[in-house]
């Protein structure tokens, strides 16, 4: 085991996969010589050079479109969109092309594209650079959505994403890059579509993903120490497809569920999870399901306003206290 930051773990995955398979290449803005806006690709340019780390103009459509074309010719592109907020510019490439081409061509082609991007609030970056838009892509068939919370999961899932024969949207969190954690020294592939029980408990199930997993774990620890409430914390890791089995089994045990996410509450991930649970396993529930998410308003620039509405450890604790 080594202690790596989230950023280093992603870099390690890229490096390992680029060494493992020379059809793998990265494409995006400033990820070559500069090392990436979030410094994720720093150092890779020196090892792999400009053909494997392709700098592009500021055109998200071009980045994703080029990645699609490259994939159709047999390469394995890892495209980077600097902020998920910019994804609107290349929405057609993702939703109508990348997610649909295999289907439109009767399965004759594969589109092994990974789109790396980052989202999330908490840095005072205001309404156009702080969103969590994962729900948009979960709504579309043909693309997987992966959101790791820990360095180990980030490395293992990115490697699986690169090896996947289908398009994967890999969403990082801008506030996690410096978070440290253990990463195995040997190669590890973490399967896409499998949630992880980050903490076992019997009283209540907290479903979270990305940075909210850390808040959920903090909340669970505090609730255990203060109230002896034993929360089970499930890290979704993959948002689409959802690991229903892990979620349902947990609620079967606890009878209570709270979903936590940074995305907008309306039509969000929590809504989907709770709907699936209530429609299929109504009898598991011992209390009304609760979702904690970002309210239906733009992310404020003012840091205090942002903090006041962004889900955090305290808000999770309060929501759980009201439920038990």
């Amino acid at each position: 085991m080594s202690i790596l930051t989230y950023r280093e773990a992603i870099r390690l995955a890229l490096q390992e996969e680029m060494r493992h398979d020379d059809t793998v290449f990265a494409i995006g803005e400033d990820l070559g010589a500069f090392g990436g806006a979030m410094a994720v690709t720093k150092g890779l340019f020196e090892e792999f050079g400009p053909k494997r780390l392709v700098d592009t103009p500021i055109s998200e459509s071009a980045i994703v479109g080029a990645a699609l074309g490259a994939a159709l010719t047999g390469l394995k592109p890892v495209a980077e969109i600097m902020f998920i907020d910019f994804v609107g510019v290349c929405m057609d490439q993702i939703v109508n092309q990348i997610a649909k081409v295999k289907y439109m061509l009767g399965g004759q082609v594969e589109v092994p594209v990974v789109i790396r991007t980052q989202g999330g609030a908490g840095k005072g970056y205001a309404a156009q650079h702080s969103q969590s838009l994962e729900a948009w892509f979960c709504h579309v068939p043909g693309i997987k959505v992966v959101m790791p919370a820990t360095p180990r999961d980030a490395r293992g899932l990115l490697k699986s994403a690169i090896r996947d024969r289908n398009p994967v949207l890999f969403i990082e969190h801008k506030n996690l890059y410096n978070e440290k954690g253990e990463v195995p020294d040997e190669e590890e592939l973490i399967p896409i579509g499998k949630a992880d029980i980050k903490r076992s408990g019997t009283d209540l199930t907290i479903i979270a993903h990305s940075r909210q997993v850390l808040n959920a774990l903090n909340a669970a620890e505090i609730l255990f120490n203060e109230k002896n409430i034993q929360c089970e914390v499930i890290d979704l890791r993959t948002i689409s497809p959802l690991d229903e089995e892990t979620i349902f089994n947990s609620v079967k045990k606890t009878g209570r569920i709270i979903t936590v996410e940074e995305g907008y509450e309306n039509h969000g991930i929590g809504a989907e999870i709770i709907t699936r649970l209530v429609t299929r396993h109504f009898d598991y529930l011992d209390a009304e399901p609760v979702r904690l998410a970002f309210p239906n308003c733009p992310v404020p620039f003012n840091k205090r306003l942002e903090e006041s509405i962004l889900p955090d450890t305290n808000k999770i604790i309060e929501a759980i206290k009201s439920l038990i």
Partner: protein
Amino acid sequence: MTITVLMPRQGESVESCLLSKWYKKKGDIIKTGDIVFTYETDKSAFDYEAATDGILIDTFFEEGDTVPVLDEVCVIGDEGEDYSHSSKITRESDMVSISDVGALKPPMQNISDETKNEDSADINEKIKISPRARALADKSGVDYRNAVPTGRDGRIEEKDIISMIEKACVNSDTVKMNNDYDEVEITNIRKIIANRMMHSLSTSAQLTLNTSFDATSIMAFRKKMKEKNENLNFENITLNDIMIYAVSRTIMSFKDLNAHMIEDRILYYKNANIGIAIDTPKGLIVPTIVKANEKSLSEISKEAKKLISECQTGRINPDTLKGGSFTITNLGSLGIESFTPILNSPQVGILGVDTIMTRARETDGKYEFYPAMGLSLTFDHRVVDGAGAARFLQALKNDLEKFNG
């Protein structure tokens, strides 16, 4: 919308509650969270907090009434609203259906076309239960309407059904062994004793110190009095009388132990009102010798004998059972060497008097036997620290060892 407030069910065995106080009267405006009334079980009192805004349209019981659980207590709603569907007549027919295990729904004839509106639906939705709890109840065959809801907003949750099932198991176990015992409903005095003991243990920080003293002096004194008694007309002085007398004198220097603790106040008594625990055929009774500190040994002896006799024959005046500031309980005559008396709450101290045992001690290199009488002092550590209580015992021991009337 009108809300009919039902007498909450507080515990499995509680079938009715005493409505002890109305905080609102008919016509008062009520806000959510307001305390509308207080009700009591035989164990404790609870406040009913309004779950809705409105006006107290009607009340069905007076203060002091005993109300069956789940019976309608009052109606909260908007002014002038018709609440006839929740009248007593309807309620009573509902009660019939609730007692009928087979019927899950209230009788349909109560819902005429006119009243088939949202309100009547609310009345039918009296029992809130989580899907999980309902599924478990159905699977286990228990009637969830008898569950004690502990969830938010009075909702029955899984754990409430589990506790019902567990209780049902216990009950069926005891039924199987029915021939092995006689089942007798406990007497009132037993109930009172039980409640007072539990209350004492659960509301104070009590512990017991044990010591013994050389009873040579008091035994000699008693012997002397007994001899005199045969010639003159003196009362027969018992060791217990001497104990009451000695405590009533010693305790005057230890005001912390001659006290009551009531919530966050302490009442220090100016006189030693000594309660004496008396074993009677019906149970423990504790009459009081008021101002024992001002009474002579012979007066104490006479009064104690009178009280004991009245207790034994059940002719005791209830007023003499009140007002004690400290209690003495004697198990010495039954051979008990030491014990942990339970405080006669809210008193701060109780002295247990133990039996006399022959002990050996060393004085100036010589060994001798002496009669040692045990003392077991239970005190409330909230009021007195261990050293303070020990000093009282030490003083009492000194006084008793030097006793000469």
